[in-house]
């Protein structure tokens, strides 16, 4: 059993809050089962700033901005905000691209995977299997000596630029200049009231920075430590609260068919989430955690976030993203290229013990 200290309860509270707000944001207007989905939000934001032209997927999601600024507030209050970076910037940038590709082929980030699962969507079970397998392979890679290098405190304000970018997003969200696109139909036209979304994002960003809670880290710690891992209890709290909230809001629909934003291509769901799990372990966190770390001044995570934005544009422009109709040929190839990318980096970035 874990130590039931203050940090443990903070993690449990963070997990429960993420689960609850993930369901409530959908209840308040976000797309079904997508109350919180970092990859979908990134795709929407990329579309809004003109990185793709799918007119049904364009909206600057206030939750993302909230995550960053909540994390900044917490990091500044705790004296943890430091510009740091310098660890394999380009592989991290490309990892961000492939994280979104993996998520887009599955239709959702790891948070959405659990939101879909707790809403009764049985198509996610194979995605969960993929995520666990990917995290397991990632752990094995780390133990074999794969790592992208040390992240060091840096001179200058490199950690300020991604928060500055999101400040710009906040400004254009409110000012709505003509070059920003907002969908009038489609899933991006569905959103909770702006201030609700922003407040929820700020609250969750603050909590996630303090607790270090994220889905893939919870899975990783569970595989490493079993029930002694506090993050695993956070994930359990997330799941229990989300199930109850889904039932209370009438969003629970147990079944394999007719689920919102899902498809039945099990192999590709498995591989997509496997890629996300594997990459997340190597770069130190899933898409949500990368955004929180970018809010702490981590320029390496900032590179991942920039890669995610570019990936958000590419998956829509290049027809990589899966739909309820299934996974496109380009989506399948992109996941395989992603797996190739991690395999090659595992070779290039492996430190072998000297003989």
């Amino acid at each position: 059993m874990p130590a039931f200290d203050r940090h443990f309860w903070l993690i449990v509270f963070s997990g429960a809050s993420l689960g609850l707000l993930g369901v409530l944001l959908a209840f308040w207007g976000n797309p079904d089962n997508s109350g919180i989905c970092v990859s979908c939000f990134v795709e929407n934001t990329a579309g809004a700033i003109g990185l793709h032209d799918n007119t049904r997927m364009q909206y600057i999601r206030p939750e993302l901005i909230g995550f960053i600024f909540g994390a900044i507030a917490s990091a500044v209050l705790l004296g943890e905000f430091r510009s740091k970076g310098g660890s394999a910037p380009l592989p991290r940038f490309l990892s961000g691209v492939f994280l979104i590709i993996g998520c887009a082929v599955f239709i959702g980030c790891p948070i959405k995977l659990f939101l879909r699962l707790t809403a009764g969507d049985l198509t996610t079970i194979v995605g969960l299997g993929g995520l666990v397998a990917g995290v397991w392979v990632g752990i094995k890679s780390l133990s074999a000596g794969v790592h992208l290098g040390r992240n060091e405190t840096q001179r200058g304000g490199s950690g300020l630029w991604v928060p500055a970018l999101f400040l710009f997003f906040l400004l254009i969200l409110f000012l709505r200049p003509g070059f920003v696109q907002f969908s009038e139909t489609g899933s991006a036209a569905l959103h909770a009231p702006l201030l609700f979304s922003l407040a929820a994002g700020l609250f969750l960003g603050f909590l996630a920075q303090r607790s270090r809670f994220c889905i893939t880290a919870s899975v990783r710690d569970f595989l490493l430590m079993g029930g002694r891992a506090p993050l695993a209890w956070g994930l359990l709290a997330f799941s229990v609260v989300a199930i109850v909230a889904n039932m209370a809001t009438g969003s629970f629909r147990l079944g394999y068919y007719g689920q919102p934003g899902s498809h039945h291509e099990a192999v590709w769901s498995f591989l997509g989430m496997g890629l996300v799990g594997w990459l997340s372990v190597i770069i130190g966190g899933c898409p949500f955690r990368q955004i929180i770390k970018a809010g702490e001044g981590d320029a390496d995570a900032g590179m991942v976030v920039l890669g995610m934005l570019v990936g958000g544009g590419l998956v829509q422009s290049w027809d990589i993203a899966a739909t309820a109709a299934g996974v496109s040929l380009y989506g399948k190839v992109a996941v395989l290229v992603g797996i190739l990318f991690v395999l090659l980096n595992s070779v290039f970035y492996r430190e072998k013990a000297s003989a």
Partner: protein
Amino acid sequence: MFSDLFDRIHLLAVVLVLVVIALLLGGFIDRGDEPLRSKRDPSVERAMQERARAAFLLETYQPVDQMIADKRYAEALLKLQSFEKSYPGEAHSMILRGSILIAQGVVGEGIAQYAAAVKVNGDYVDEKSSLNRRNEITLLVENSLPKIKESLRSVVTPSTEKSLKNLYYLQSRLAGGCE
């Protein structure tokens, strides 16, 4: 920070640049041809295009809608054929053909036409769109799904399986979620 002349000059320059940006955006400085350019604002262009597209489709296909309302199905199918020569791959032809085929009892092909139309253009299941046919598609799924499942219990044919797959696709799109 900002302890020597170099830093102070840079700080002053930063403030100056911010003030100029604010004045420019606030319209206090002559913005050259901006008023002309803003007439071609991309968001206005896009909204116009989308609405014009929907209006064009509804107007162009109106005769087919009328024939369907009058139950002149054969005539409507012929008219759709002529439209398809002019506008190949247009989802509106598919959705109308689906509607005619369902009315004529050709359920499997009708469902396939509806699914193909929604794959091409999600506006048909979107309540906010002027092309919205959500109620019609919901009714189709609710009526056909039990029948198709029932028929699959007795005889399994590739066409019935295909219809079931198409119905599940439509059901999933009706359920919402991210696209």
